């Protein structure tokens, strides 16, 4: 347990650091208001065309609250891929090897510390906007479950981002992988559109992939909380985190073997 206290300390330092530039934090977060306003304009049209006001089990209000949470999760992401790939490319990863901590756990701690307040502020601003547009949020009794799911989403994102960042060991440029990963979250992760609105075959495909467990899962749980949904989400997140962690450890150790250190 003592081993993890240093990572807790790193997390706390990063948490405080993230408040050092409140203006930057604000400008990054306020964008959610704009996005939600545009989404509100877009989604009110399909719902206005239905008699029941329900599409694939979601109302207009559900959809807006769903999109608020997916946006908050996406907008609070850090530059993790770039940080890791830069550390690999400029060789600074080598200087971290003799430090008394694990490089990947260090990155996880800083990433979570950096994410938290970004997410909180984005959620507060987005929540205020969504409330203004479509009324009160979904049942608050489901919120604790959603928080656990969001934490799982962050860890899952870390595993995938770190894997992409470590690609710098083998390829000169990782930015294209980062862009495509982000767009996969947008579409197959259900960030821009709930998976429920997809054609059946694409829904089935998306539900098998890790992207949906990062945004769709927590946001769908938020608008329609239930223990069954939570259990299925936890199982999916845990399975993907376990598999990707294994792959990540493997990729990191293989990458280190390729590392060439010149001078110092």
């Amino acid at each position, binding site marked *: 347990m003592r081993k993890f206290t240093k990572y807790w300390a790193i997390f706390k330092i990063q948490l405080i650091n993230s408040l050092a530039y409140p203006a930057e934090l604000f*400008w990054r977060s306020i964008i959610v208001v704009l996005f939600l306003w545009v989404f509100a304009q877009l989604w009110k*049209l*399909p719902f206005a065309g239905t008699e029941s006001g329900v599409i694939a089990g979601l109302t207009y209000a559900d959809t807006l609250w769903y999109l608020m949470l997916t946006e908050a999760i996406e907008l609070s992401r850090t530059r993790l891929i770039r940080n890791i790939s830069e550390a690999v490319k400029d060789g600074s990863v080598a200087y971290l090897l003799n430090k008394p901590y694990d490089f990947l756990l260090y990155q996880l701690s800083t990433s979570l510390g950096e994410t938290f307040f970004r997410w909180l502020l984005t959620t507060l601003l987005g929540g205020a906007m969504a409330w203004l547009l479509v009324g009160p949020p979904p049942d608050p009794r489901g919120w604790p479950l959603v928080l656990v799911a969001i934490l799982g989403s962050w860890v899952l994102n870390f595993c995938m981002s770190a894997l992409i960042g470590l690609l710098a060991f083998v390829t000169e440029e990782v*930015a294209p992988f980062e862009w495509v990963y982000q767009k996969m979250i947008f579409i197959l992760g259900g960030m821009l*559109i709930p998976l429920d609105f997809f054609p059946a075959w694409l829904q089935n495909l998306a539900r098998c992939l890790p992207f949906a467990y990062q945004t769709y899962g927590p946001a769908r749980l938020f608008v329609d909380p239930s223990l069954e949904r939570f259990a299925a989400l936890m199982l999916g997140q845990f399975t993907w985190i376990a598999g990707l962690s294994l792959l990540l450890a493997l990729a990191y150790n293989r990458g280190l073997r390729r590392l060439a250190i010149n001078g110092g």
Partner: protein
Amino acid sequence: MNEYHPTRTPAWILLIMRELKFLLAVWKTNIASAMEYRAAFIAQMLGMILNNAVYFIFWVIFFDRFRDVRGWELSDMFLVFGVAASAFGLAAFLFGNAFYLSEIIARGRLDYYLSLPRPILLHTVASRSISSGLGDFTYGILSYLASGYCTWDGFGRFLCGVVLACMAFTSFMIIVHSLTFWLGNAAGFAGLALNAMVTFALYPVTLFEGFSKLILFTIVPAALMGALPAEFVRAFSWGALGKLFLGALLLLGLAVLVFHRGLRRYESGSAIQVEV
């Protein structure tokens, strides 16, 4: 006493020619420098094409399920996405520093450009080329070709619309980043403005009415980057061309004015030696 020479080229034309030659030389250097990392350059370009294609799947799914948005269909989205992506890409590839101007101003890195006998703003924004911009530009053309509006004269209008939209977009970026002269560092605000411009440009203009539509033509002139050039590409009209040209010209004038007004407040970072 000067003699009258009827064939003598006016001084202002000579000046423009000289600056254009300079601009071409800067772009040539940028391309040569990007080619030093050829694999990364090609990867960024292809990656950006793929990135845009994956993003566009959203609209394919949306229109497959809901058919139209107040008269806008998938073909219209292909068209507007084509114009906006190409305009964005052209701006990123040719005037890449327009995206980093706040940082350049805040860190005192304008010193380098101030010390040279060339137009400061032009030199600064053209001094960086973002390789992925070429991917956006190419994707825009592919999107236009897929839109179903493709004809030979339409393609001419597409290129004309892209150039004017690029001019409007770059000018807008310069204006918001130039606020750094007054605010200290406007990078966060400029990021918000960039997101607003691109988001509004990439959504059907028919979604917005009244006051919000007014904003799209004024404060966040996204209509000049998406809807208006797309309308011009669909069918030629002097009205659309006039609005587009006038809008782009006004924004360019405003960008030059705001930047040079701000420049009076600039404090040197003594960074000449770093850049040379």
